[in-house]
């Protein structure tokens, strides 16, 4: 009964932690645009915390630099279950323009933490980010929550 109630509430209340693992900041700016009145992220029940301990969704941007290899795992372990990871933009998916020969990035992010959803684009449109979070998060969180039992 209590878990069922939790599921319902969690579906409409998503806490997001934004992690920039060494990108150009373009995707982060698109996330900021999401917080603006035009897109108004919070009307969907999504709240950007920037605290992994409270996060349901970890939004990863950036192409994973040397320093972020360990920290990314640490952040992932700090987030409470159930948690999902969304790779935002091309950097965490493929390394994008940083993944040149002789470059020092360790993309993709899925080498370090399990990724549930990918949003491609450099940067993706705010509406695409929103679409991805809303399409994946409620279902995934609810499903993972139930699996735990």
């Amino acid at each position: 009964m209590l878990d069922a109630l939790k599921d319902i509430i969690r579906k409409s209340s998503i806490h997001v932690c934004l992690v920039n693992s060494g990108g150009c900041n373009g995707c982060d700016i698109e996330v900021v645009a999401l917080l603006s009145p035009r897109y108004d992220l919070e009307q969907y029940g999504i709240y950007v915390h920037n605290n992994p301990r409270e996060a349901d969704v970890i939004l990863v941007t950036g192409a994973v630099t040397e320093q972020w290899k360990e920290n990314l795992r640490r952040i992932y372990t700090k987030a409470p279950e159930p948690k999902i990871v969304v790779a935002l933009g091309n950097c965490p998916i493929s390394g994008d323009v940083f993944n040149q020969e002789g470059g020092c990035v360790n993309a993709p992010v899925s080498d370090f933490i399990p990724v549930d959803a990918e949003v491609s684009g450099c940067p993706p449109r705010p509406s695409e980010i929103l679409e991805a979070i809303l399409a994946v998060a409620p279902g995934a969180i609810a499903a993972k929550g139930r699996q735990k039992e």
Partner: protein
Amino acid sequence: MSSVIWYMYEFARKSWAEKFAGAKSEHDIVEKPDRFRDFPEVFKEYCIGCGACTAACPAPGAIKLVRDEDTTDMEGLTYPVIVMGACIRCGFCAEVCPTDPKTLTCGENHLIREEFTILPVDKMFVIDDYLCIRCKKCMKSCQVDAIHEEDNKILVDQKKCISCGDCLDACPVKGALKGIYISNIEEQKQIINLIVQTLEKTIEDRQEDLKKLSSDKIFKMEYPLVELKEKAINIIPKEEMVMDLMEKITDRLKMRIITWDEEKCTKCRLCVEECPSGAITYNKETGVTRNPEKCLRCSTCHQTCPFGVAGYYLAKFLIDKNSDGEDVILITLKPSQLPVVD
């Protein structure tokens, strides 16, 4: 405490409750703007497999050239595939794609629209490397740094040039820097042909005077410009352009004139064999004749003929005013100093 009361009042207001219940996002936030540059579109049948797109792509692995398997009827197509996870939608691939129509199109890329890339100018500035003295005055006068030095040559970067003409004023050598009209190419050709042919005909009409000319004298004549100008304006109805063209043509035009004195001919037919283009023919009735249409003005006949049938003269031209103040083309003719078989 007062703030709590204010909050309670805010929450109790009907309009707030209505807005809260009926909140929805506007549709326009998911719509892409008209000029949004999305992922490139691939039309694989146009691809020539040159690989320009992969070379231009700034993101490694965003474009992969793939080749279909050969079938019994035809060879497999080669075409680019866009990897969404790496493409940054910059549109460079569409910009460099050389096929027509383009294999790759990417939104309304401003570089694909020709009216934006090609400057709307009618003159192209070029430097004649042969005449250029490399004083670099044009380089200093250029306001947009379009003129640069490369490999000890002064070059104009056509992409940067705004056709202001400042370099032309700065250039101390006549003809070393030229503003060439890039429109009406066919008409310009017609005018060039008209002028050259008219001038040659004028000179050849005065063959008799030329024959009397001794080898150390020069022969001067004038040709009025008015008539020629009228004819040229009929082809291109822009006086400024026609005058510019005429000046450029006559400026460094060197014409070779061959005269033919049949009275001196002894029908030895030495020239017939020597003529490289077959312009000189022999016929029993008409004797040795020269066809000016075929003639290359190479002067081989002049050097071959032992009797001086073929005369060879060099003509130079200049547009100027004569003593009456009329615009004329001054023609100066000089007998050639080539060695002749005696």
